[in-house]
């Protein structure tokens, strides 16, 4: 989905996410959160962006072979693009249900894989798009408006 990226971005940042790296997992979301705080954005907007980025980052860590999170700050919104190469999601509708998870027992024992990742991202987003190709990977676009309702 790189073509949908807003060319009017005020600034862009990219974070590389390594698969299965639980030591660094969450760092990208934390960096993004600090950046948004430095920009002085609305606390409620920052919160939603941080949650969406964190869950997306964890999904890449847990399920994929690695990927990237790119964030554009536009005058109207925060656009979060996530791309990974990996197994993809065979049934997106199911994956969007709360509690549905394909995470392994091992991952669940670490306290992850509760099946809340995608639903939480969707809840935090004003606009949400997901595309996935089985055997290739998953793309996610999350829009969070600066001046938003729920």
């Amino acid at each position, binding site marked *: 989905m790189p073509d949908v990226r807003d060319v009017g971005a*005020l*600034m862009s940042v990219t974070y590389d996410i390594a698969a299965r790296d639980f030591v660094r997992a969450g760092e990208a979301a*934390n960096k993004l959160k600090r950046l948004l705080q*430095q*920009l*002085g954005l609305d*606390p409620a907007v*920052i*919160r939603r962006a941080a949650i969406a980025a964190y869950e997306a980052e964890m999904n890449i860590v847990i399920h994929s072979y690695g990927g990237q999170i790119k964030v554009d700050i536009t005058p109207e919104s925060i656009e979060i693009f996530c791309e990974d190469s990996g197994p993809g999601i065979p049934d997106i509708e199911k994956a969007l249900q709360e509690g549905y998870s394909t995470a392994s027992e091992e991952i669940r024992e670490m306290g992850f894989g509760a099946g809340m990742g995608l639903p*939480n991202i969707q809840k935090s987003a004003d606009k949400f798009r997901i595309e996935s190709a089985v055997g290739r990977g998953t793309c996610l676009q999350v829009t969070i408006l600066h001046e938003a309702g729920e």
Partner: protein
Amino acid sequence: MVQPYFHSVTLETENCKGCTICIKRCPTEAIRVRNGKAKILELRCIDCGECIRTCPNHAKRAIADDFSLLSKYKYTVALPAPSFYAQFSGQDMSISRILQGLLQLGFNAVFEVAEAAEHVSLAISRYIENSSIRPLISSACPAIVRLIQVRFPELVDHLVPVHAPVDIAARLAKEMVMRKLGLKREEIGAFFITPCPAKVTAIKQPIGFQESWVDGAIPITTVYARMLKVLPYAEETPGLQQASSVGVHWGRATGEERAVKVPRRLAVDGIHSVIEVLEEIEVGKFHDIDFIECQACRGGCVGGPLTVQNAFRSWVNIEELTRNLPCEINPGIADEVDKRWEEGFYSLEGEIEPRSILKLDDDLSKAIEKIELLEKTVKFLPGLDCGSCGSPSCQALAEDIVQGLASEGDCVFVLRDGVQSLAEELLELARQVPGSISNQETTDKRTPSEDGRED
């Protein structure tokens, strides 16, 4: 906020050696060393007292009240923090004797903050039941409230907007004295015996309400020496001691969490551990927890910078002092809380406002410019976080540079490189002089025999 900030934590300039120990431990990066002395940044300081604890030269001090303030009031009430009890131990020690000791120090009455803590425990439980926000975070520790305002502004909604026990204690005590003795509110002075500077600040500059009912905060360290003199003569006095073990346990970590009756709770103490937990909450974790007790000091209030006893010892003292007390909150208190909850007696009247210290500029495009400059600057700095520049880390120095509060030359490594290249340049120039300059200025200085003027 227009009003200048009051801070209990202040610097004793003469004692400060300009070392960098405090700047590294400060949880809000509120201290810089400039011109060889520490400087506290007012907007960032949360009065947690971490610097008082860590300064080896005792150059940080808490400004608080002392006994001289008592004479301003017709009638005085001591409000001892539960952690105050924990300073005392011994076979014959009891809370009743400690309270009697306070009366002998000149207070007309005592009201246990531990008792008010029981009210607050029930009020917090009520609030949690009626709120959909999770996890909810206790607002009892004023350093944590301020930490969240400045460093975790997204989480201010998670704070339970219920008054801290000391404020409830002051109100209950004054109401009682007004009723029984017919005194006016301003004739009564209520004094908190405090374990920490954050409480001093919270009383002088409350958050979430206008004016505190507490008239002063006297450090435990000030009261302690006087208590040692009177305690041997202080006898058990029936009726003085009212609080149950539940309220007294608020003086140490986990005490509050256990007193709040909701299913899933956790307690975290030590400000750096609290920060770790808050960072998790910021990204959406811990939403399955109902209530979190957060204490800035390790061990809870007994670990406060203005206490005397070792915090671990104090834990044992609390156990011993509460051994014979009831384990449950008096049902009478539950009835009172039920009644007064509806009047809003326990609720903060105002909002707890976020006030982020991280924002680089009010203007978004300027903030973006600053971020870009910041990234460049961070790359330029050595990344050793040595603190020699007087800022707590290379990242913090970069922020200071971007904000015009420091310069690259403050970094000793950048300076050294600068001096080195300057020296090299100088050497280079020195070599060039004979060849490049052939005018009078140079030739004049030469001896006539060397002078080979050729034009």
